């Protein structure tokens, strides 16, 4: 074996790979999925389907962005699906007083649930999974109460319906909303002290506190943010349906969001977050669902395949050893 250390050319691919970090695996999976579907699934690579995927994606994405922040602090928010239902219900019963009343009220309801979650997690030190499981259950009940005991309330305000059905030029409004939220979130995480505090509070809360980071306030804020975004997702969903269905809206949304976040490469234990990864993760889930649908494969198989993808993504992110 030669003992001289030859100047190895820095492998460009390797640098790219490490710059992508934990998102790399997810990105590769997405490219493979899209490529395979473009070849094997009829009509997959068409503009219509492109927009379809984005439309389907936008609600999950809104919830997932909030979830990314929560998970970055080492927590989890299981209540997002119920919050979606609450916000839809609030909008449905107040929409007759105008959008300027209904929309803020609906979002405020979402933030209120988030505030409750955050307060219990930070100041009372209850585990996030327990707190948000409680608000998941109670929230679903509350939504049905607001929704006049589980009735299906149709909404026909044209302004409200534009949220989920309208277009701004070629862009569907809901896709636009999701895109703006993602962009703002990236900015929030990267460029504001709040973003740094989220990662610090998740990475090492004791150290963060000693460095003067307002850890409790930061934790409360991420749950409020998650509640706000889930509320927004609930509005879009209700607008798409043209109705508030308290038992149905947001059902299982928390699991889709967690899956997107984890597949994207955000650490479940906190301290590391990637919003780009979350977008990729959400896309992977949506591409699977859409393509299975187009191939007329039963939905249950899509679920099994999603599970495999989640396991594979987490396997790729496992801590490396020598």
């Amino acid at each position, binding site marked *: 074996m030669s003992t001289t250390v030859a100047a190895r050319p820095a492998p460009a691919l390797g640098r790219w790979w490490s710059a992508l970090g934990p998102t790399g695996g997810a990105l590769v999976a997405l490219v493979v999925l899209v490529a395979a579907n473009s070849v094997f699934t009829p009509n997959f690579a068409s503009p219509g389907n492109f927009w379809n995927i984005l439309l389907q994606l936008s609600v999950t994405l809104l919830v997932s962005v909030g979830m990314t922040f929560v998970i970055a602090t080492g927590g989890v928010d299981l209540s997002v699906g119920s919050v979606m239902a609450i916000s839809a219900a609030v909008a449905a019963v107040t929409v007759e007083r105008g959008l300027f009343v209904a929309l803020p009220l609906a979002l405020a309801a979402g933030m209120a649930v988030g505030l409750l979650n955050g307060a219990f997690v930070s100041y009372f030190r209850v585990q996030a999974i327990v707190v948000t499981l409680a608000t998941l259950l109670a929230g679903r009940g509350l939504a049905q109460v607001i929704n006049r005991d589980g009735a299906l309330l149709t909404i026909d305000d044209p302004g409200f319906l534009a949220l989920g059905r309208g277009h701004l030029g070629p862009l569907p409004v809901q896709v636009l909303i999701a895109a703006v939220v993602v962009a703002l979130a990236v900015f929030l995480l990267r460029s*504001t002290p709040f973003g740094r505090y989220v990662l610090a509070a998740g990475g090492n809360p*004791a150290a963060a506190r000693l460095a003067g980071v307002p850890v409790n306030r930061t934790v409360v804020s991420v749950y409020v943010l998650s509640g706000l975004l889930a509320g927004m997702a609930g509005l879009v969903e209700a607008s798409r349906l043209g109705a508030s269905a308290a038992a149905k809206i947001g059902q299982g949304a928390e699991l889709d969001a967690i899956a997107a976040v984890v597949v994207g490469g955000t650490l479940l234990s906190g301290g590391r977050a990637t919003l780009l990864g979350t977008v990729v993760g959400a896309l992977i889930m949506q591409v699977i669902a859409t393509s299975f649908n187009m191939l007329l494969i039963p939905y249950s198989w899509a679920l099994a395949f999603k599970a495999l993808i989640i396991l594979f993504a987490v396997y790729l992110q496992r801590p490396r050893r020598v």
Partner: protein
Amino acid sequence: MTSPPPADRHDESDVILRMEGIVKRFAGAVALDHVDFTLRRGEVHALVGENGAGKSTLIKIMTGAYTRDGGQVWLEGEPVDFRTPADAQAAGVIAVHQEIHLLSFRTVAENVWLGREPRRWGLVDWGRMHADTATLLQRLGLHIDPAATLGALSTAQQQMVAIARGVSLGARVLVLDEPTSSLAEREVAILYDLIRQLQAEGTAIVYISHRFDELYAVCDRVTVLRDGRLVGTHRLASLERLDLVCLMLGKARDELRQGTTGFAGHQAEAEGAAPLLRAEDLRRGQKLRGVSLDVRKGEILGVAGLLGSGRTETARAIFGADPRDGGSVHVDGKPLDARTPDDAIRARIAFVSEDRKGEGIIPELSVRENLTLAALPTLTRAGIVDRARQREIVDQFMRRLGIKCTSADQKIRELSGGNQQKVLLARWLCMNPALLILDEPTRGIDIGAKAEIQALINELAGTGLGVLMISSELEELVEGSSRVVVLRDGQNVAELRGGDISQQSIIHAMAEGSAASAVPAALEA
């Protein structure tokens, strides 16, 4: 190649473990370069070296955690090739790590027998498990209840349980990696007793520690590594401390300054300087029972005391990290009632915790983010972090403190302990503090970085900063401080100044609870 001096030559049958020409490479970089190591039955063998010397790599090869790229290993004369820690364990080569890898919610007995529980009819035989544990603990002279929950025990006792587990695994070679790093002084004595007991039973012990006192107290021989190479193996009894430091650093003896710390020697007392911090009668439960001290501008006040004396609690009470039950703190003559660290930071107080991993670094964040974490509010313009100013500050402090990393974007967890500590110091220095509270500023840091940090502290005090330095290293206190406050059981017991500051006087105050002036001549000698 170093050959041991003739006096050191033993009968070959005495050798229990022999490693020869061990080579290990990581991604092209050589971590171990033909290192030899022999361990004899019943000896305590110190393994020392600065960070990056290759100590832990050698240990990991010895205990099967890494596989070697070259060289040979014999155990009791038989060539061995451990592929996993389980292989090594089965052969009786067992490591007890610095951080204890046991289940804190389970009992002592369960932990000792974890993975090989005694069984009867396929079920766990609880009676035998407890009886065997009791016998084992008794044999080792440990007074620990086998049914106690591990997490309820003191760190020292947990450490003993970890060692007992190693013994029960049939350890012929026991590797103790910094076994005292979290122990109090009297707990260390218990550990020493246990080590001697094992030694008498013929167990060979590899002992890794940064503390010289310990090496000289328990070890027979020492192997020094530097930059992945073997420097030599010596009998400790015939090796002076200064020579050992020289071997570790690879310097000639006269290159070293007097003393082994980076301080310039006794600090002059800042007699006329204005008082910066005055803490009076600090109280918190049983931990703090009335501690008072003051720090003046430009001085280093040393705080000495055994673990549990209230040293760390004093610092945390001043900084607002823990609430206090009573007492007052004045900074620059103004009362400060810090309820959170944030309050103290506003009063320009900085605090570097003794627990670098647990309370210092944010492991997943970069050097840049870690360095500017406390300063973020001042680096923000219109709610956005000012990247240019951030970079400027990071560059400035990385240069000034000589922080070694591939770039400011490197994750801090990848840095050596010394460089992490420098980043944490920089985190506060960039805030331009008036008072710097340092709790064990050089613990677990290799000698080179240690001297640099000590020199830096000295220099900072020279610029008018007040420093409150807690340390369990007496050398550091004696050479660095202008005054030393000694704590014991949560109270002040002595304040030493000027010529009264010596290792003996501090030890005396910690042990006897009175000032050094009362030391009889015999003790002083």
